[in-house]
């Protein structure tokens, strides 16, 4: 076991390698691991944030759903009201129309009756005149007149 320059050489190599390692090797891996740690932390944080966001979104969705349901109910309500209103109006209109038609029909009937009466009167007077002429042509016979008149009257 003898000591010689090899020992000095190894010591120099030792310090050179140490320097190289701390300057050129160690920081590379320290950096990468640090970055990865940061990235994982960021990812986890983002995950937690996403979960929270999701929860909030769900709460919001439930709220909005409730609101929307209320609105829908409201709209249906209004629609129902409007429908019944329309139906009511339609009924009123129909009744009025019916009455107007009835009134028109009655007026026409009245007119028809009047017309019929008029023509009847004309015919009656014609008949009366014709009867009078006949009576005048034949002798004036009371009994016959009576009979004729009653016949006339029956004819009216």
């Amino acid at each position: 076991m003898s000591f010689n320059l090899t020992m000095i050489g190894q010591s120099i190599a030792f310090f050179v390698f140490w320097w190289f390692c701390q300057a050129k090797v160690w920081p590379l891996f320290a950096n990468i691991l640090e970055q990865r740690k940061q990235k994982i932390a960021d990812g986890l944080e983002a995950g937690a944030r996403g979960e929270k966001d999701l929860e909030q979104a769900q709460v919001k969705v439930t709220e909005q759903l409730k609101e929307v349901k209320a609105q829908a109910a409201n709209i249906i309500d209004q629609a129902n009201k409007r429908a019944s209103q329309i139906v009511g109006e339609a009924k009123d209109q129909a009744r009025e129309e019916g009455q107007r038609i009835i009134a028109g029909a009655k007026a026409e009937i009245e007119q028809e009756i009047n017309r019929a009466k008029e023509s009847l009167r004309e015919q009656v007077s014609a008949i009366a005149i014709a009867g009078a002429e006949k009576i005048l042509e034949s002798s004036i016979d009371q009994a016959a007149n009576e009979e004729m008149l009653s016949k006339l009257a029956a004819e009216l």
Partner: protein
Amino acid sequence: MAELAEAAQAAVEHGAEALTVQEYITHHLSYLTYGKHVDGSWGLAHTPEEAVDMGFWSIHVDTLGWSIFIGAAFLLFFRYIGKQATVDTPGGMQNFVEMIFEFVDARVAEGFNGKNPLIAPLALTIFVWIILMNTMDLVPVDWITGLATLVGEYVFGLEHMSFKIVPTTDVNITMGMSLSVFALILYYSIKMKGLGGFLSELAFHPFGKWMLPFNLIIEVPTLFAKPISLGLRLFGNLYAGELLFLLIASMLGVVQLPAHFVWAVFHLLVIPLQAFVFMMLTIVYLNAAHETHDH
């Protein structure tokens, strides 16, 4: 493994006489040494004796070369992976490197209380570097060494060239690292506590100022025991492992294949464990160096 060992052995025999077990092991435990010869000239040592004679002014080209090659390869590979790494879709290799990174980072986080961003990269460098250097022990002992011996003989004309490929079986390598850690312990102790604080920690603990000599007797050896135990523990474990591989390869003949396998399985535990121990102790020592006591 057995065939290759035999082939290598045959190749060695081809160059010279057959090796005895002792020669084989000595060959494998010697280094490819470059240094100052006794006559003052610089060059490769041709025999183990020559290498020993060089004394301090020599370098183990093989272990230091492998150590630097492995360290550079690991750091460049990690940098390459880190460069093309993505945050979102990490590939298989990136996952693997990140796993090691996070493992080391967690150990530093629980073992080091100070605020020094340089400690974690230090721990990563030590851990992966030592694991890879230790893993070289699993390469069958004659593969690369045998090839290198052939290359040495036919290309460079070196007879019986040694070529050790496991840097952590070289006490110079392990002590080089543990003494570097020791230098860091001293540097940070003085930086964080001040020279006075550091010296008073040696002098006034654990028994207060009236037992100063006694404190010094306890604390100073404790301080120096740190780098020595750190370096020698790693060296001892790997050296013993390597030696057993060599004994199996040199003495067991045909039976060596299962024996190698069994020992390699045991050694698989030692390889990461020793790297882990070296890293953890470095973290603990440097943590103590950063702690400032208020008494």
